[in-house]
């Protein structure tokens, strides 16, 4: 093997051997095999794990979603696409989609601009800047469960911190039932989400801002550009890749929201804060209608997948172009 490998290194020699009837088929084959074997050997452990813990469960969930199955024994009651038609007529699931969309819009429309504003602010020379950065980032480090418990205490009607503070400054009117009110529960959940995650996006933006050359700002300033113009025409475009990434993470996060909702409301009151993941959990683990839960999980998977692919294809493409390695590029 070592002999052939040193041989084939030199392209001239390989060309010279072309006319030989014996060599050309064997040696390139050995080389091809080797080229093929090395990456395979290195990726097999990863592929096996990925297949076992990602692909197989997805395929199995897809398989199960065509059965009326209680998770007991092997699925046998084949019902075709019944679970999917039921899904499309289920007011709770349709509500999940609507609420998911709302959360996505709120995240992208309110949370991210707010995070961006904070990032720009904390990128200035400011006394205690590091402290504020840490302070705003801290909630992200908390687990969603702890956050949930914390805020279910803060937003306890009357007895909680929120109502006490509002009462103390004479704004009782603004307080209320928070999580216990069907009309306000989603907004309250979003408030908590924002508290927890804006710091993370702020950090992304701060990192992105370090890549904006100061010289550009200086030049713009000399040309008489005001702060808004500099933000609009220098900072924002150069922050593009970061913003696109942050939108992506934010949307996927909103689609898969579970822990926080489960802890603070379990999706209630009367499904008004339920998300797809909560419905999935309800059917999979509480009602043990695994078939139907499988259908929900497939729907959720498809929504995330379609979004992710479309986003990669149409939005992230210019950021990743050339950065991705391919077999062809390697050769």
């Amino acid at each position, binding site marked *: 093997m070592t002999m052939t490998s040193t041989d084939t290194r030199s392209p001239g020699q390989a060309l010279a051997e072309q006319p030989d009837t014996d060599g050309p088929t064997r040696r390139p084959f050995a080389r091809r095999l080797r080229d093929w074997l090395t990456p395979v050997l290195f990726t097999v452990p990863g592929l096996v794990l990925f297949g076992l813990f990602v692909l197989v469960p997805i395929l199995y969930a897809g398989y199960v979603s065509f059965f009326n199955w*209680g998770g007991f024994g092997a699925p046998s009651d084949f019902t075709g696409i019944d679970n999917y038609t039921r899904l499309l007529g289920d007011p709770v699931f349709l509500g999940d989609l609507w609420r998911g969309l709302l959360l996505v819009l709120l995240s992208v429309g309110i949370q991210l601009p707010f995070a961006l504003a904070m990032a720009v602010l904390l990128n200035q020379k400011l006394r205690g800047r590091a402290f504020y950065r840490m302070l705003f980032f801290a909630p992200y480090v908390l687990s969603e469960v702890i956050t949930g418990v914390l805020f279910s205490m803060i937003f306890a009607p009357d007895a909680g911190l929120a109502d006490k503070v509002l009462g103390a400054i004479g704004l009782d009117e603004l307080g209320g039932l*928070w999580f*216990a009110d069907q009309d306000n529960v989603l907004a309250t959940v979003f408030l908590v989400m924002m508290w927890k995650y804006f710091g993370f996006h702020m950090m992304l933006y701060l990192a992105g801002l370090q890549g904006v050359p100061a010289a550009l700002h200086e030049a713009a300033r000399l040309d008489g550009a005001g702060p808004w113009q500099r933000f609009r025409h220098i900072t924002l475009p150069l922050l593009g890749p970061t913003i696109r990434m942050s939108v992506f993470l934010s949307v996927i996060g909103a689609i898969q929201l579970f822990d926080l909702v489960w802890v603070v409301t379990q999706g*209630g009151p009367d499904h008004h804060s339920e998300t797809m993941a909560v419905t999935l959990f309800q059917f999979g683990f*509480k*009602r043990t209608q695994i078939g139907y839960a499988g259908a929900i999980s497939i729907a959720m998977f498809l929504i995330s997948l379609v979004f992710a692919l479309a986003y990669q294809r149409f939005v992230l493409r210019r950021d990743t172009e050339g950065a991705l390695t391919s077999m062809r590029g390697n050769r």
Partner: protein
Amino acid sequence: MAGLSACSDSGATTTDSEGRTVVELWNIQTTEPSKSVWPERVKAFEAKNSKVRIKLVTLENDAYKSKMTARTSSGKLPDIYHTWGGGVLRQQIDAGLVEDLTPTVSPMAPTFIPASLKPYEFDGKTYAMPIDIGAVGFWYNKALFAKAGLTAPPATWADYLDAVRRLKSAGITPIALAGKEKWPGMYYWAYLSMRVGGVDSMQEAADAEDFTGDSFLKAGEHLKELVALEPFQKGFLGAGYSTPNGEAAVMGNGEAAMELMGQWGPNVQADSGKGIGEDLGFFPFPAVAGGKGARTDVFGGGGGYAVRKGAPQAAVDFLKFFMSPESDRVLVSEAEMMPVVKEAVGALTDPGLKAVSETLGRATGFQLYLDQAYPPAVGQEINDSVAALIAGTKSPEQVARSVTQVAKSQ
């Protein structure tokens, strides 16, 4: 999957290096005081039976349930395992995995509180040894009742609604309810259905997969009457059960006059709130005028031990020992279990638990918790629909229809 796992030998008995028969017992006693009582009971048994070793496997409640689901579908159950009876046990019996314990239990049955056996009885046979039995009823704050001028607990639904009105007009929150968790609200609907239609109607409805009968509609209407009085604490729809500011805390801090809860109620009240001590009283769910159910019919549940088919005789011997009067007295006084053996009732010291036990002793009918008696999906749909009824978004008819629809799809 089932086929694969079933390859391993499930019928054989195991012996340890000293030649003793090993009996595996899966229990859920992960917290004190019961946590240390189980090993002590096992030692007491082994001291008398040198040829047997009981291997305790102690699992946390939810972990136990998910592990058992896996074990059940693989057909390989532990020799002795905890069961709540009802639908899950039924499934295991239908799969031919559970030993019929009738020959063992029926001679002992006269010494037991009759209701304790109900969750494990199917087609006239008994499939588990009861080890614990409890019931749901109203825990009430005597001081707050007195403040509203109420001298005796209400005996009928009309009286009950009246009591709620009087508490309200005295400025007292009548009822603490964990609206977020749904199951505490279901208790009201279940009890009302039992009172209106009688205990038998509950199982009949499940068998017929039809919950649209008159009794369920009326139960819904009665619950609606209660909800219309706005008897619950502020923000109850977001309240948990044992969380800070939850149902038990509101009750335990004396901020509401009553809650409908099982025998564990007082403990959780004292944990989540301050506990109201002597002021705490217990009364059974009121009767509904014209209903078929008696006020002495009880809604509740307990725990028992089932034995897998083909388990060694030593497993059954242990259960006989475990639920002897002497042993149950130890369980009651040291592990704070509810007595199953009548003789052990005397070992109860807590007045609240005594009241629950007396209610159980007098029980003319017994209905197991709906989420255990019914298939999980039906139980959850009841929780969900009743929660919507309490939140004011579903009518009694809609509740009956949704539950029936899920029951039929099973």
